[in-house]
């Protein structure tokens, strides 16, 4: 079976910057939920941007990114972006329309959905994230958790096959975080989640990939990787409390 995502020897450096990704290779099968974990600046967000075709395929990038067996290039960007939905880390960057309705309708409109079906789609998308009746609200009057769920609704409305999430639980209170985790657990499409909320990764992802310094350090079953205290500590992470067999005293981490 063709993998949903196949990244092969991807190498990238930002203009005037050091290498952000070095020979990154991994595969994600359709329907899988995979966690990208690693410290700040490890290259997680850069990988997600590549999977969505956001970083131009210029001299700064080497290697291949295949979505559903199709190599990303300038010609098929529309198709790739239809297939791959990306939820950005900062909701204010993503919610750029004056109302919630306009924002959720933005993607489907770009993809040419007839106007008479937009209203239904927006209503359904809001219902999926538990925000019925929010259509006419302005983004700047929403709470952080609501903003995040509207972002998700806006991407789900495009009906992607693959959903990418960049730090979906950052800045959320426990209730907002719980709601979001349950929402993501209820999806069946392929999901790739970049985060250092390792408890969340443990709950949602069967497989994890550890990044550090733009390299893939390890990949395997989430439980095995996150329980490896030495691996976690060496790459700026901590075993989730629910997995730590030998809980380290907090002062030992300093």
């Amino acid at each position, binding site marked *: 079976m063709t993998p949903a995502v196949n990244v092969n020897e991807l190498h990238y450096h930002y203009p005037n910057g050091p290498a952000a990704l070095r020979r990154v290779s991994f595969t994600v099968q359709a329907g899988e939920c995979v966690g990208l974990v690693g410290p700040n600046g490890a290259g997680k967000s850069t990988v997600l*941007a590549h999977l969505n075709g956001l970083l131009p395929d210029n001299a700064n990038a080497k290697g291949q990114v295949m979505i559903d067996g199709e190599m990303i290039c300038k010609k098929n960007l529309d198709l790739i972006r239809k297939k791959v*939905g990306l939820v950005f880390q900062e909701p204010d*960057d993503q919610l*750029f329309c004056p109302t919630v309705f306009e924002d959720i309708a933005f993607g489907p409109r770009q993809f040419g959905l007839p106007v008479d079906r937009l209203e239904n789609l927006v209503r359904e998308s809001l219902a999926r994230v538990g925000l019925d009746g929010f259509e006419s609200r302005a983004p700047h009057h929403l709470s952080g958790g609501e903003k995040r769920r509207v972002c998700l609704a806006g991407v789900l409305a*495009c009906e992607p096959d693959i959903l990418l999430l960049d730090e979906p639980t950052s800045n959320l209170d426990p209730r907002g975080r719980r709601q979001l985790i349950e929402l993501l657990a209820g999806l069946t499409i392929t999901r790739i989640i970049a985060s250092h909320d390792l408890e969340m990764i443990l709950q949602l992802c069967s497989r994890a990939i550890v990044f550090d310094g733009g390299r893939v350090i390890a990949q395997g079953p989430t439980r095995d990787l996150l329980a490896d205290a030495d691996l976690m500590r060496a790459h700026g992470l901590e075993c989730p409390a629910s997995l730590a067999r030998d809980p380290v005293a907090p002062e030992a981490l300093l």
Partner: protein
Amino acid sequence: MHTHFLDTYSHLDSPIHRVGAATKTILSIAVIVTLVVSPPSWIGYAAAGIGLLILATASQIPAMFLLKRLIMLEPFVLGAASLALFQPHGVPRFAQIATRSTLCLFTLVILANTTPFSELLHVLRRARMPALMITTLALMYRYLFVLKEESARMRNARASRTFTTTNRHAWRSMTTVIAQLFIRAAGRADRVYAAMCARGWK
């Protein structure tokens, strides 16, 4: 942090707010065109002024708020009108132009504060305004709030570490804040554009 600094009262439920956005826009334009093309008449101006005051009262928006909005825009009107002072019969002409423009401005202030901005955009879209201009307006409206919050956060951050407030110091750190805002806004523009592309913008 919830900011209401632009559209504080545009979501009230008054008789004026309930009138459709398209109707209100057309009526406002009609009022403005009439004021501009009709021959100068102080009785006419007084009638228009009273009519607008009645509308303003019916809208249930606090008078002070509307007045402040008007005063904020008044320098532009007075600046333009003051050119008339250099012509023959300058003073009466100046008074006329200033009154007339203030009435037009008042009409627009009432329109803008009794209609949600997204509905105004919708009206403009239906009136075939170029899509690029509407997108620009929509983005500007959306990110004014974000910028306002960002500058408030930066001001707080600065204030919490400011121990001596001399004027010179205050001005200097103000320039840093403004420069930072520009840099951050440019960075945000890149990320917003990426978010638009991610959902199929061409």
